[in-house]
């Protein structure tokens, strides 16, 4: 069989593997640099936030999606458009709170953890915590303060991976003093 036949057949898949592997290298490095998992989680969240505040621009420019009317619509856009666009997966939106200010994203397959096994001595590490930061940062840029955290993770033996998102408040646009 010639090599040509297989050439770039899976280039899209490969590209997500590049991301997965790079993320893995980052987490490995963080685990070396910090003494405890809490610090690593915090750092991942921070880096995610930095990514989120930039990613939102890319997202808005490319998806031509306007302002969301309510949190339900936000949830749909995140799950069906954003996750699909950037991670190639569509989480389901469930567990709405009665007030409609809290919901869960259930990730059936989390591309960040494709080749990952957590060693026993890292049981408080939230491996994909970057995602929380990304979501928080991106939503902050569209005037929504949201609390994002992992409540279940398949890496730690749960059946599904669940990200819980809670709407805190709408951020008022503060014009700098003296600005029109």
């Amino acid at each position: 069989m010639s090599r040509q036949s297989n050439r770039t057949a899976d280039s899209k898949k490969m590209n997500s593997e590049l991301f997965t592997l790079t993320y893995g290298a980052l987490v490995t490095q963080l685990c070396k640099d910090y003494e405890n998992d809490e610090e690593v989680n915090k750092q991942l969240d921070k880096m995610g936030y930095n990514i989120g505040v930039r990613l939102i621009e890319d997202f808005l420019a490319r998806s031509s999606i306007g302002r969301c009317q309510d949190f339900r619509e936000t949830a749909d856009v995140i799950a069906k458009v954003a996750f699909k666009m950037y991670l190639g997966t569509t989480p389901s939106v469930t567990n709405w709170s009665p007030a409609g200010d809290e919901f869960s994203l259930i990730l059936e397959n989390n591309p960040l953890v494709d080749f990952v096994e957590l060693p026993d001595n890292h049981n408080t590490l939230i491996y994909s915590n970057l995602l929380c930061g990304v979501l928080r940062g991106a939503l902050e840029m569209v005037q929504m303060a949201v609390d994002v955290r992992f409540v279940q993770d398949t890496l730690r033996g749960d059946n599904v991976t669940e990200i819980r998102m809670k709407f805190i408040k709408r951020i008022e646009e503060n014009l700098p003093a003296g600005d029109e």
Partner: protein
Amino acid sequence: MADEAPFQFLHNELIQYISKSTENPETEHGRNITKLENMGFRVGQGLIERMTKDTARFKDELDVMKFICKDFWTCVFKKQIDNLRTNHQGIYVLQDNKFRLLSQLSAGKQYLELAPKYLAFTCGLVRGGLSNLGVKSIVTAEVSIMPACKFQVMIQKM
């Protein structure tokens, strides 16, 4: 449909993190570059392992280099290397006229001093890839005008 934006943003954060994590940027510069390079190395190893699992055995070193220039580069950067040169004594120069990780940075000499940071990971990527194909090497990069970039691969004889 995996997108390339996440990788680019992640790569930027990686650089930010690595260069911020030390107090004295001047003396630590070399070590930071090494760290980035090592991360790239590990990723390159993993990628090549997954890419070549169904491919035929390579004929020789040049065949391996061609694979890196075509398939590997296309997979990572969505384009091929523009020019491959060799002196047939173990030195290869891979030229990319529009290197993806620099193309949004500048088109000219602005920010040239920052270029090494943005290339270290890729150098590691290539070295790791080659290493898993049985070729031990040293990979360096140079930029004279962004976003063009030259990677020099020096094969270490085993």
